[in-house]
């Protein structure tokens, strides 16, 4: 901000510059990219997220070993050149398992947050648009959901279902939509009073059309930010569930269930505990940086 103002004032072409600027007024999109590129941490976060996607898509080409290959001759080996992250209690290569584990984390993060976002948007939009008793009931419901220790509820439901990746996605999704609902409701409360809504109504648009075609697109930026931050949360919950043995089941590799083996062998094999946790840490950090970066670039005043 300060820099660009400075360079403008020293420019001998200031008048020219101004008119030029006026002619091609920066679009919101350009402004967003301009701010985002200046935020170094956010760019780093974005690059890491991109890299994680590449790793999970190309896992078979990157992984040095078969992640499920049991090798009794190389049990609990410390890191070496042939096994950079060491091996586990069945002689499986930890690096390969961590690489394949990224697939689980990314897909759970995306699908769970997708479910939560859709539920949150529907409840929040209807609640904010219609108000009245419907709003009271939904917001009361949100308050109640927020005072249940969510992790307990997730555990209980998962244990009743068969533990598996799809059930985890669904359960994390239906227990984490409350924040989105509140955000969307707050946006709707202010947006529904604006002129463009009145105009749409005067043209005879139906309620549903006003909600989803006119108001919702204007309320999407905070939702986008909370979704990116939500992925980080979902990755953490999934790894905790798998760590407790009720998430993704072995032999399928997930970062959480590699850590379970790490805990069982904690006195003799530190490497099993260190590397998968590092992967979770980097992933969550990257999504957080990216989310905060997007928020600051959309609107620096936005508070989520």
């Amino acid at each position, binding site marked *: 901000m300060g820099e660009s103002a400075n360079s403008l004032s020293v420019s001998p072409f200031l008048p020219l510059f101004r008119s030029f600027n006026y002619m091609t007024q920066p679009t919101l999109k350009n402004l967003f990219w301009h701010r985002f590129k200046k935020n170094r941490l956010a760019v780093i976060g974005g690059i890491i997220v991109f890299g994680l996607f590449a790793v999970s898509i190309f896992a078979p080409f990157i992984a040095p070993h078969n992640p499920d290959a049991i090798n009794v001759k190389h049990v609990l080996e410390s890191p070496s050149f042939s096994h950079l992250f060491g091996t586990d209690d069945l002689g499986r290569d930890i690096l390969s398992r961590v690489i394949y584990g990224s697939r689980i984390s990314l897909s759970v993060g995306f699908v769970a947050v997708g479910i939560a976002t859709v539920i949150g948007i529907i409840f929040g939009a209807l609640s904010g648009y219609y108000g009245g008793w419907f709003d009271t009931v939904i917001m009361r419901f949100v308050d109640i959901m927020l*005072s*249940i*220790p969510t992790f*307990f509820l997730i555990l209980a439901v998962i244990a009743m279902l068969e533990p598996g990746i799809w059930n985890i996605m669904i359960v994390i999704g239906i227990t984490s939509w409350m924040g989105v609902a509140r955000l969307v409701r707050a946006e709707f409360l202010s947006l529904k009073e604006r002129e463009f809504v009145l105009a749409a109504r005067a043209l005879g648009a139906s309620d549903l059309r006003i909600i989803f075609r006119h108001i919702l697109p204007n309320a999407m930026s905070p939702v986008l930010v909370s979704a990116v931050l939500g992925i980080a949360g979902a990755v953490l919950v999934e790894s*905790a569930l798998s760590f407790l043995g009720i998430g993704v089941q072995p032999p399928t590799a997930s970062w959480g269930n590699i850590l379970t083996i790490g*805990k069982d062998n*904690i006195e003799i094999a530190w490497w099993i505990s260190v590397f998968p946790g590092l992967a979770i840490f980097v992933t969550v*950090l990257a999504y957080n940086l990216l989310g905060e970066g997007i928020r600051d670039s959309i609107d620096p005043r936005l508070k989520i």
Partner: protein
Amino acid sequence: MFTYLLKRLIEMIPTLIGITLISFFIIQLAPGKPTDVLADLNPKMTPEARERLEKYYNLDKPTHVQYWMWLKRVVKLDFGDSFSTDRRPVWTKIKERLSITILINSLALLLIFIIAIPIGVSSAVRPYSVYDKITTIIVFIGFAIPTFWFALLLMILFGVNLHWLPISGLKSMGYEGFSAFGKIWDKVNHLILPVTLEAFGGLAGLSRYMRSNMLEVIRQDYIMTARAKGLPETKVIYKHALRNALLPVITILGLSIPGLIGGSVIFENIFGIPGMGQLFYQAVMMRDYPVIMGVLTIGAILTLVGNLLADIGYALADPRIRAR
């Protein structure tokens, strides 16, 4: 003040009923019956025996009838008997384990309060300084570290490599033979890691929140007035600004309780602490419905009581609310 508290107390009842209703129906919605596990354990169980068992636990009735019967008993603190082999009353089982979970969570909450607030205040006083940037980075790291992994790392460092702290349970071997002081010291040693880690999870969020509150307050007119009349800066910050910035934090502390209680499942599992989280984990693995519902209800009550305490704290700190 009194009517305010009474109102808050009465408001808690429908919330509590709502929580149990949601929990009850979500658990019932899931496919599979609790008798499945019993039948798996005992292959000799005939379909008739199974039916008898279901009748005994009222599992053959429709869900809303089951809920009503459950609710009528719960009012008298009777959560029924556990499905596990010991068949003990759920309330007895929870009572044995409640105190250690509450102890660890309260200590963690206290620790969060003691550490997060000075960090938040000191970085708000010098915004965008090197110190502020360093704490911001630490906060980001704190947000992203999976606490159960951090627990494993600390166990490796302090337990396995340095042998400073025990990594499992609440008592050392030969605990009974220790002196009174030795017993306390032993317990403290066992609690250091779990409490620190439990607190660590909440630290990042609260210090961040404290910082933004403080920044907001410092911009207010009355702070300028305080400075203008020549008060020393420490007095302006710690007396005038801090008090007002602290108010919303009290509410946030109340809101962080569900997360803390939820986290105790993981920590009690890692450190082998016989608390409510461990009980819940075992119950979930055995599909022990009465225990699951019991712990969920008690967890919700703890949350609501925590929120109520936060509200009382808020009212005590803020005369505007007290007057209502």
